[in-house]
């Protein structure tokens, strides 16, 4: 399993709303991406992110990021009879995630294109 490092967070930084989160932007992108297909509570988020990104967010790290994202209005908590409160993406969160992922896609496309030009395709 890949170990999530601060460098990964830096690499995820791109002009956009998530820049305000500084080194947490990488974690924020993972959480917002997980919530893009529906509301999830903390444990479900952890498992989903582990499944699609190979990254296990520790509880303190996860809730530090959730708290920041909620304070910035990028996600919101839903009412629940269960003690495990689910979170969902807001419109602002969706816009921020889209901007972030588009910036990452641009970087990825440029990198892959240059790799293909100079190193061939694998």
């Amino acid at each position: 399993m890949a170990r999530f490092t601060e460098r990964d967070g830096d690499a995820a930084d791109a002009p956009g709303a998530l820049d305000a989160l500084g080194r947490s932007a990488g974690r924020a992108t993972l959480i917002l991406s997980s919530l893009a297909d529906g509301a999830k509570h903390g444990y479900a988020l952890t498992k989903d992110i582990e499944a699609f990104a190979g990254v296990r967010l520790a509880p303190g790290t996860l809730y530090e990021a959730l708290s920041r994202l909620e304070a910035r209005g990028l996600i919101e908590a839903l009412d629940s009879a269960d003690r495990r409160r689910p979170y969902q993406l807001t419109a602002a969160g969706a816009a921020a995630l889209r901007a972030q992922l588009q910036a990452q896609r641009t970087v990825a496309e440029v990198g892959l294109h240059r790799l293909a030009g100079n190193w061939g395709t694998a």
Partner: protein
Amino acid sequence: MTRPPVIPPDGIPPDGITAAPGGPEAIRPPGSRAARRLLRWYPRSWRARYGEEFAELLIAEFAEQPRSWRRGADVARGGLLARLASAGLISARLPGDPVDPAAGRRASLAALACAAAIFLTVGATMWAQLTVGWEWAPPATPGGSVAMVVMSAAMLLLAVLAFLAAAPVAIAAARAMARGEAPRLRRPALLLAGGALVLVLGGRHFGNAWPGTGGRWWPHQGLVPGGIAAFSWACTLSVTSYWAHPTVLASFPPAELAWMAVSPAAMLCVVTGTAQLVRRVELSPGVLRHEAWVGRAAIGGMAAFLGGALCWVTEGGPGPRGLVHAGAIDVAGVAVMVIVLAAGWQALQRAGRPEPFLAARSVARR
């Protein structure tokens, strides 16, 4: 019919009422006790908001992996950060806190003030030992003399900058109190004033008793008036390697030991009060620019002091080697100053830029 569990005011769910993930309410699921213990790292306000759901996540994690020092360290780190944020010492907002761009800059300035305070505490500890040492004997090496001149000049600069930074905030706070905002500012103002009073009284008392300077206000020899050197020494008496030598510590006078316990608390009060005041007082854009300018100059002053300290540590220090020499605690002090200077620089960078997420929010709303 089952009644929902009642969460106490401290936000920690009582033992035995936590439901197992995905199952019906159960009595004390595995990990609930450990989860409760870990929750105590977080402040009450955080627990009131996230306590229940965070405990559920921890219980699920415990079920999956009963033992993990990484998880414990991660929760401790998160809890300490939340406590620092709750005390107003670092920039962080909980949901429901008002969105205010100026508040973000004030929070960053408060973080810079905290970084400068830690730097000054560690730096003053080192500098006071050296200045007191010079009262007895001059530096043995040219490098030591240069280091002392640089560190003393940097301390003077930082003292002037502290005044320049504090004056506009004090004026703004006084005006805010006159406008009737006293209740919001009373607690930080009392913390600041109380802590400063204790430091001044205690520092003067224990400084006067120091035989090396006798509290003289003019230099016997060296650069710095003995009173200032002794005062700095007394205020930072608690930062010492004697804590690692309990038998030596036991021979200290009880009053001095008490002061070594009280003075850090007083310093903490000053720093917390200052940070909270900076975060709560409305500062005009002009004052914010002024504070950012002072912050940049302070970073320069701290870097200069650090250069002097490094010079001294590598040279071995002024005075007879047995009297004042660089030890492990001084090397550790230099490491702390480097870390704090980096943190202060980051805070300064944040203080100088608006919060971009606000722009994103307005775009999303359109």
